[in-house]
């Protein structure tokens, strides 16, 4: 009887810990936002200086966006893993 209560309590604490961890993991998504802001800000400020060359670098911009966004999504996946498994 006490073992069941203890196990139940342990499970509840583990679930609470998972939920807190999932919330903490979402800070990584904000960090990805900072990275994206740096990337696009640099692109826009360079594009305003040299508009003719801007279109040629668009592919590189999209590539940089995708790899930076990936880091944010990795942390989101950790959050989902904690919440749902």
């Amino acid at each position, binding site marked *: 009887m006490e073992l069941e209560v203890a196990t139940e309590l342990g499970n509840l604490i583990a679930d609470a810990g998972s939920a807190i961890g999932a919330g903490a993991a979402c800070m990584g998504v904000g960090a990805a936002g900072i990275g994206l802001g740096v990337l696009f800000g640099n692109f826009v400020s360079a594009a305003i200086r040299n508009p003719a060359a801007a279109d040629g670098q668009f592919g590189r911009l999209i590539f940089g966006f995708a790899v930076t966004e990936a880091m944010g999504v990795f942390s989101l*996946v950790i959050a989902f893993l904690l919440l749902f498994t």
Partner: protein
Amino acid sequence: MATDPIHQFQIERIVPIDVGGLDLSFTNSALFMVLSAVVGSGLLLWATMHRRLVPARMQSAAEIFYEFVAKMHRDAVGGEGMRFFPLVFTLFLFILVANLFGMFPYFFTVNSHIIVTATMALFVFFLVIGFGIWRNGFKFFKIFVPDGIPGLVLPFIVLIEILSFFTRPLSHAMRLFANMLAGHITLKVFGGFVISLGQSAIFGAGAVSTIVGVSLAIVALIATIALTALEFLVAGLQAYIFAMLTSIYLSDAVHPGDH
């Protein structure tokens, strides 16, 4: 009907096949992989059926698609690496069609399982190592030794380069997998918000809370629509990124030491 966001990723056996204890069933994942391959190549074959010298609409679209991937691959690898173009094109087409199929309601998103993306990423990884050593011999390992590094830090740099080389297939697979998984979970979660907020209108919880509930449900619906549009963009973008990274990794095999 399950309403949690995880149920959409459940693998279901459509045709159970048991080969001596090995489960080789034809699952919903296999069905959509076959559909992606058939529809993708079928569309291109049908578009280029007539092989007009001056292309009509569909053939022109197919040629633009082909040239888009060819330009990306050529810019990454150069002339010698064009031997890998069929692989890169196939990867791009398959991932693009599979991701777009996942956007339909009740369809299964093939790339939302790590095993699928890891298979493709590991294939590229072993191809890079295999072709690199076959073509370049031990000069292939020059990719771990960048130019212009002072002698003292060289061992550490080489170690870090080797480590980052081995995390390539991990990030390559994870990027596509995580984007598909997170995107579809988000869509389901926001869709669930629309239902749970709109329920106040059905179950009559009093005038004020009904108005608040329904207006928030409409906001959630607009958010779901915006997120669906974003998911379409991500579907195409992630296919492009996977193919482009494949090209970049292959350029390491074709001409190593070009960092």
